[in-house]
């Protein structure tokens, strides 16, 4: 402190808090999209710091696919109470019934794609003009291209060829009626930054981020936990393994990592030494096409 210099984590925190305050000032009805994972938990922590001693001036919105880890849902409810934030939950299940959507089939039925419908309906229902998300640019190569204030048209679509210039720390959130801005306050954080910050700030996480025992099957080299949503096929070998999760998504499309890391320090050491990216190690659904993420974003996805 005495040298009047911020280390890089403090610099990142500073940038994020500035962004949160711009959101609160520029938009009438913002919402924080809360997934239950470490990135959105970090977002909530940053939002709290940005507005303390006031409350977080927008609701946490969870688009519930129905395929979540029960531990993540419990944690979500606990956190919303803890920070005294309003929690809005909208279920993909309901959208499927209402809109007569076709459920994906297969062994790992991912509702990832269908979430977009529920998200856009929720935006419409509450007239949200801004949705804050926890995406990071280091996650994926389409995300590496997206602005911090990312304007979406009335269909929620991202047009990567028409992004507004975004200079210095000046954020232009002006939109026409019906349009919507997605804001990503932790764009410039890496996975490791998030973990280090969680350690420094002593942020609580759902237990599934730490090693625990689970029944899993192996699928193309990845470990997938058995649950009511993932049933073993006849020829699957059920293994009991000590695992942790590196990301928390749907049970049907998030792979576990074999690990004994029970503490934050141990997890961080493993993350430092791994040679596989977060997405590569944990997502079962992302390899379909090279532009999977870009395509989803163009369609209104987070």
């Amino acid at each position: 402190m005495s040298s009047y210099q911020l280390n890089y984590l403090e610099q990142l925190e500073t940038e994020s808090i500035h962004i949160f305050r711009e959101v609160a000032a520029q938009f009438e009805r913002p919402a924080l999209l809360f997934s239950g994972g470490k990135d959105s938990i970090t977002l909530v922590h940053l939002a709290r710091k940005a507005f303390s001693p006031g409350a977080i001036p927008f609701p946490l919105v969870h688009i519930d696919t129905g395929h979540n880890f029960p531990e993540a849902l419990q944690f979500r409810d606990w956190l919303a109470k803890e920070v005294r934030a309003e929690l809005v939950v909208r279920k993909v299940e309901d959208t499927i019934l209402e809109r007569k959507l076709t459920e994906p089939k297969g062994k790992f039925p991912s509702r990832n794609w269908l979430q977009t419908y529920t998200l856009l309906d929720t935006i419409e229902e509450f007239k949200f003009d801004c949705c804050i998300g926890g995406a990071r640019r280091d996650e994926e190569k389409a995300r590496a291209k997206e602005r911090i204030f990312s304007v979406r048209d009335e269909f929620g679509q991202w047009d990567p060829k028409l992004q507004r210039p975004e200079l210095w720390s000046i954020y232009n959130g002006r939109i026409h009626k019906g349009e919507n801005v997605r804001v990503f306050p932790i764009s410039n954080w890496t996975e490791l930054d998030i973990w280090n910050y969680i350690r420094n700030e002593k942020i609580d996480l759902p237990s599934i981020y730490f090693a625990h025992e689970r029944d899993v099957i192996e699928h193309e080299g990845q470990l997938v936990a058995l649950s009511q949503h993932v049933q073993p096929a006849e020829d699957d070998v059920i293994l009991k393994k000590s695992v942790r999760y590196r990301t928390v998504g749907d049970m049907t499309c998030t792979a576990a990592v074999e690990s004994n890391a029970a503490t934050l320090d141990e997890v961080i050491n493993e993350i430092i030494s791994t040679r596989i990216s977060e997405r590569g190690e944990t997502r079962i659904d992302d390899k379909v096409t090279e532009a999977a993420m870009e395509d989803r974003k163009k369609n209104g996805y987070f």
Partner: protein
Amino acid sequence: MDLLRFITAGSVDDGKSTLIGRLLYDSKNILIDQLEALEKSTKNRTDGSVDLALLTDGLRAEREQGITIDVAYRYFTTPKRKFIIADAPGHVQYTRNMITGASHANLIIILIDARQGVVEQTRRHSIIASLLRIPHVVVAINKMDLVDYSQDVYNNILIEYSKVAKQLELKNVSYIPISALNGDNIVEKSDLMGWYEGEPLLEFLEKVSVRSDVNLTDSRFQVQLVIRPQTEQLHDYRGYAGKIISGIYRKGDKVTVLPQQINSTISKLETGGLEVDEVFAPQPAIIHLADDIDISRGDTIVKSDNLPLINNELEVLLCWMDEKPLQPGNKYLLQHNSRLVKSSIKKIEYKLDVNSLQKQSAEGGVKLNEVVKVIIKTASPLVYDSYPKLNANGSAVLIDETSNNTVAAVLFQ
């Protein structure tokens, strides 16, 4: 550990994306699955090599056309430093995306194709580096493999570029001959260019002193929002939340609120939810004043003994970033940090010619990618510093009220 933000620039196909790919690859900052994906998407190459540019060219259209369209950000760490890289497009059509990346950079790497020398885009990007006062410039003379690693070629380009640098008053310019494709002088010093006495690029990037961009002398703070929880316990709480743009603020400091010109004293300071005795740039803070004053978003609080400029008619450099040319009679919104005011262009003084780097008359209006000096008039006074003196309080953007697009970068003079 400190942080260096840098950007690659230069003309189309000069090898910016390849250079970044090479830097990440040779410094072992590419993970196995990313490498596999890369190999898969370049498997149709006959010589079996991978196209390192595909590491940052993440959009479908970019891969199809083999060009960069928008800035990609990559992050990597060596034992010495943490880096945030912006890979800019070289194509003139996407210059505004390059400016977006350049506005955050402490260092710019300008690539030059050794076969071509300095071309128009080299000059255009150099102008931007000069306008934005990026503290360090590295001129990477690339594709040395295609000119037999010739020292003469390197020297000629060095002489040619030095003239540009001099005219644009670029500071701290260094030159490195490289082959991004083959990895010469990127992470390891190349055996093929024994005549080059400097260090390879990565070593240079690790060593260059990051001049702290932060000005700690001229205290500037702009209110982003007023925090008034209005709960039972915090009934009378009223704090001004914002970022310390520059300088240091302490409890008890005599301050002036601008443009209102009202004096007060700092009664309490908070950052990160804690009460503190002092805050410094660029920390986020909440300032409390001893007096009840009407203050809202966009107002500035400065120390009373060090005042910024206050004007509603001022000289600025504009970099036009919209397809639609500047419409002289129109009103534009000017956003200066969090302050939004209406403005209009009163007079265009001159235009900067990219080729001669000379001032010329602004006849024919102001079009995409042009840099002009203008007099701008605002509906209410701006509280600012000149960009050369204090970047963080000297820059703004213009917004077209009807399209909502950000149409110009504004640098106060």
